[in-house]
């Protein structure tokens, strides 16, 4: 038997296929099943080329192959995950939910991966790409100010980096990102905005965070943000500050971040795919470490 955590990936779109490449690169994870609905999809073709076990039976394939799976990455859609979760739970597997279905516990590795892994949570929700980019910054600001009145994040992503499920899930994206912002920053109110930019060549992912705070301490905010950046850079190399914490109109702090991907399945501009997948792989690796420790 292998001593790697055995992962199934459900969904063969942009997210699922990029995850596959990242899982295969990990020393702690292996992909034992790549399941979708259509053998002719680009993602499936990629998986065939990589020699991975594939199936076109979707969630039923997870049931059939349950004995070779520890963790299921669900990279389908919010509506589909709501149907998948009872099945995955019934099999006694851990779900890492890549959709904004928000059935499980929100996880941002830079904030709470260890806590999540130690808590026995079985459904781990990766929030959204914009959430992974902005929530840790919001949390860093909240370390300095526990009285944030309002927090707003706006992400712009390249049109080509948004697949059909992302597009159909825009409302869930907004609601889930806002819920996570409130949870991790303690802000009274939150707003999330997503902009799909049609430009060709495609634009890089950028996220701007605005926080409304009385008398912001910009020196301390800078330090907290820089410390958080280091934690994020542990799992997302291309995460960088574009505009450092800047005060506008006395009570608004604005920070802009750019996320460049490593260019696994989609080109580097698709930092949105990269950051949520890097985060998910990071959590899975933490689970693997915990499991391996228990076994040794």
């Amino acid at each position: 038997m292998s001593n790697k955590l055995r992962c199934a990936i459900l969904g063969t779109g942009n997210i699922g296929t990029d995850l596959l490449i990242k899982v295969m690169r990990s020393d702690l994870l292996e992909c034992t099943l790549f399941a979708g609905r259509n053998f002719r999809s680009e993602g499936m073709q990629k998986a065939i080329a990589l020699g991975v076990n594939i199936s076109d039976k979707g969630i039923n394939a997870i049931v059939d192959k349950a004995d070779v799976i520890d963790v299921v990455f669900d990279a389908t859609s919010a509506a589909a995950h709501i149907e998948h979760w009872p099945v995955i739970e019934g099999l006694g597997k851990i779900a890492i939910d890549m959709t904004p279905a928000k059935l499980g516990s929100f996880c941002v590795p830079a904030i709470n991966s260890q806590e999540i892994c130690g808590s026995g949570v079985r459904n781990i929700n990766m929030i959204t790409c914009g959430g992974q980019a902005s929530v840790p910054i919001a949390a860093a600001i909240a370390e300095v100010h526990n009285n944030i009145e309002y927090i707003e994040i706006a992400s712009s992503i390249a049109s080509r980096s948004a697949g059909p499920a992302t597009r159909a899930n825009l409302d869930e994206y907004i609601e889930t990102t806002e819920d996570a912002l409130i949870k991790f920053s303690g802000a009274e109110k939150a707003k999330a905005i997503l902009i799909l930019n049609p430009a060709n060549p495609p634009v890089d992912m950028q996220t701007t965070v605005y926080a409304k705070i009385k008398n912001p301490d910009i020196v301390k905010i800078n330090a907290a943000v820089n410390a958080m950046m280091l934690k994020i850079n542990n799992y997302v190399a291309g995460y960088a500050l574009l505009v450092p914490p800047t005060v506008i109109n006395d009570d608004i702090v604005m920070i802009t971040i750019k996320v460049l991907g490593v260019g696994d399945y989609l080109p580097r501009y698709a930092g949105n795919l990269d950051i949520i997948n890097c985060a998910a792989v990071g959590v899975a690796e933490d689970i693997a470490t915990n499991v391996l420790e228990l076994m040794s």
Partner: protein
Amino acid sequence: MNKKILISDPTLRDGNHAVRHQLRKNDFSTYCKAADAAGVPMVEVGHGNGLGASSMLVGECSLSDEIILSTARENLQHSKLAVHAIPGFCTIERHMAMALDLGVDVFRIAAHCTEADITDRHIAFARKHGKEVYGVLMMSHMASPDHLADEAFKMQGYGAEGVVIMDSSGHYLPFDVSERISALVEMLSIPVGFHAHNNLGMGIANSVAAVQAGATIIDGSARGFGAGSGNAQLEVLVAVFEKMGYETGIDLYKILDAADIAEKEIIPSLPYISSTSIVSGLSGVFSGFIKEVNSISAEHGVDARDIFTELGSRNAVAGQESLILEVALALKGDSSGEAR
């Protein structure tokens, strides 16, 4: 040949861009009454970026969507009440359902020119509730005529009863409009519309070109009140279409009165084509950026024209207002971000 043109009037929506979304409650009641009396078929109101868009990113509105919609509703008897709604800013549950409850008649569901598929659920929702629904493709100059027609065709498939393309940057010359409207008219079985901006002084000429190419929905604002150098001037459109023999159902004298009222009561400074607006139009950047570009330009001592040119080369679209500061800082040379 059908000689009817449906005029949609976004004075109280696009005009909000011109005042950083600070239109007052009285402005909505005053102008709605005047437009209603003139027989304007459709009056669009709200934050410049539509439902649920009030934000630090694109500007906080002095009034809530609820107040704007209920005020407009009270003052419109014959005109239909329309809203602009961009998925990504607004959600069905939080914003569209509220607009439905407050009696909105027409939903104009908008996306950037190649992003029609984000409007599927929102169009379906409004249709399901028996509302009139249009698809809107913004920043339409960024897509080729064929691509634009494909996106419009998707909107038709989702249930849109017409598709309007916006020249959000005021970038088109009449030939560009003819080419795009023709492509849509050929592809679609529903009405096609055009929304002009006047950066290059083409607002009316482009609207006429659109109609000649087969468009039957045209947007126009009183005195052109709208983002940047404004929209096609509504009362001029009404006069021009009358001269061309088209029916708009709008009473010319009364719309002239409504425009006079708008100038006197609600428009603090009439739109004109500023030097910066010309560069903005040429560079193909969203007209709504101009207020923020001007203030950041003044604050950081960077030429507003250079900011627009750089934003254009980065293909900035509406909703990327946060780029303005970044670009200004980079041009100023003191960005502490990465080197470029």
